[in-house]
């Protein structure tokens, strides 16, 4: 597949010398749903705004279909943006908001009518044409913002935390809807969010960012199952992260005990981060168990119970369908392939 947008060694520095982005390189393929995921201040929105043309990188190149577009103003780029707080035009009604880009291009009235009509249908807002945007609910405003961008038939749609202001149920609905639209219209979506679940549900590829650096790029399953470092592991879902070291290949020692694992290639006794997902911790009888702990709390989470277990040097988060009584001594064990060994990141 062809690359639609490529970022090459993008650096963004503010006037005071603060580095927002530290050498970002990324290729976004045609018809791909790419999500920038990270905590606030990680540079994900800045990266999106560079593609949109609202920020010029201090150094590095932005390529659009192989052509360098540094310095090209937003109105000359074949991308459109859905802004964080929608940024609808308060002086225009729903119809005119959606028609805005087409009117700027001076398209014939007939075509505007047809294309806006299609969009209204797509986002389920038929009958709302004459409504002023201030009298719409958050979800409806969001739909107008999406329609307003899509009606221009951009090659790439940029979405900056578009569902952030919606309640959970609506957000889930919109997630599915957005994904449907993206697939039906065969567009490239670049999506920014801090919600890991949202990223996992919608994306073809996820770009995990932190501190202006790309931590990991991969499919949702890759990112979840094979996080490259403790940050990614922690950010994507809950994790138990403990310090350990590797006496030899396929053996890791943490909390004073040795466990079998499947990782190799670390230097002898290298200190590492050991990451174990809460659902991968197996509860066994305390008798004869290598690792024991006392159940501190049990919280019912719907599908599973979340238990905090006070073990040696570490409080373990365990997700299990069976609850253990608080105060009980339990044993814990892990399958070798559920123990993820990660190099320590320099911070």
């Amino acid at each position, binding site marked *: 597949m062809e690359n639609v947008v490529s970022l090459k060694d993008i650096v963004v520095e503010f006037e005071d010398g603060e580095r927002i982005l530290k050498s970002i390189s990324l290729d976004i393929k045609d018809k791909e749903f790419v999500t920038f995921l990270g905590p606030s201040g990680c540079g994900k929105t800045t990266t999106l705004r560079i593609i949109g043309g609202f920020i010029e990188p201090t150094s590095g190149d932005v390529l659009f279909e192989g052509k360098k577009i540094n310095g090209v103003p937003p*109105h000359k780029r074949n991308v459109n943006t859905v802004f964080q707080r929608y*940024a609808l*035009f308060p*002086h225009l009604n729903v119809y005119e908001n959606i028609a*805005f880009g087409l009117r700027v291009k001076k398209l014939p009235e007939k075509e505007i009518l047809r294309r806006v009509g299609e969009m209204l249908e797509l986002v389920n807002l038929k009958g709302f044409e004459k409504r002023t945007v201030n009298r719409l609910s958050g979800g409806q405003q969001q739909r107008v913002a999406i329609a307003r*961008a899509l009606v221009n038939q951009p090659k790439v749609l940029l979405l900056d935390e578009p569902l952030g202001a919606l309640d959970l149920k609506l957000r889930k609905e919109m997630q599915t809807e957005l994904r449907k639209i993206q697939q039906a219209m065969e567009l490239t979506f670049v999506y920014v969010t801090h919600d890991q679940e949202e990223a996992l549900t919608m994306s073809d590829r996820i770009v995990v960012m932190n501190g202006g650096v790309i931590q990991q790029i991969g499919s949702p399953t890759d990112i979840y199952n094979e996080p490259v470092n403790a940050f990614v592991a922690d950010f994507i879902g809950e994790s138990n992260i403990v310090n350990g070291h590797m006496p030899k290949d396929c053996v890791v020692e943490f909390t004073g005990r040795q466990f079998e694992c499947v990782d190799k290639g670390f230097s002898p006794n290298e200190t590492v981060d050991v990451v174990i997902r809460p659902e991968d911790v197996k509860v066994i009888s305390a008798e004869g168990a290598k690792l024991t702990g006392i159940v501190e709390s049990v919280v019912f989470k719907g599908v599973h119970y979340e238990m905090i277990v006070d073990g040696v040097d570490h409080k373990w988060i365990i997700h299990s369908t069976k609850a253990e009584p608080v105060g009980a001594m339990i044993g814990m064990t892990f399958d070798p392939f559920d123990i993820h060994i990660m190099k320590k990141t320099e911070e």
Partner: protein
Amino acid sequence: MKQMKIFAAPYLVWMVVFILVPLLMVAYFALTNDEGRFTIQYVSDVGQYANIFVRSIWLALIATVICLIMAYPLAFILSRMDKHKQGTMLLIVMLPMWMNFLLRTYAWMTLLGNNGIINYLFGLVGLGPFKLINTSGAVVLGMVYNYLPFMILPLYSVMVKIDKSVLEAATDLGCNFWNTLFRVIIPLSVPGITSGITMVFVPAISTFIISRMLGGGSNLLIGDLIEMQFLGNAYNPHLGAAISLVLMVIILLIMTVMNQFSPDDQVLI
């Protein structure tokens, strides 16, 4: 809420005593003669001064347009500045207002005089002297100088509310600078434009100090005419009241037209 109404009482009394009653008195004087009988003679007499009305409206209009052209870009630039810089810049805009109105206008008299500083500077390069003072141009200058802040402030306060992302959305959807200006910025600042025009045009059309000091005797405005009927040699309070009444009606008509251009929830009067 009901108990709160009591606090509006002082203003209510004030309004009745100092606004409503005087207005009725103006109307009464305008429509009666010395014997207190009803007459429309004074109102119809106002027609004799049509040329002064036309001149007043014309000069006030020019001053308003100049204010708008000068204030609009300034207010926009102000509204896009850093928040802490905005305060300082607003202070500078307001600074002339801290000086007495008469003093400011006197200053222009000496600047514009035949032997004033401006003509002196022209003289240095071998030009002039030009007749600057006692011209309608000087009157317009005085109006613009005195009323410009009243145009800047309402424009600024409306523009500062325009979200940056709305302007970004316009560029994102294909607008260059001019498109953004005409399709987004101007439509969104209409309430500021209309109230700025009101706040400049209304005092400008009824001023008498500026025209007296900078316009000399040949640039009489409605304000001067009214003043002459009450304080001048041509003492005639009935005619003065009639002129005031006609002026009020004219302003009311102009404002009604203006309101047609503002959004429904932003009525000026």
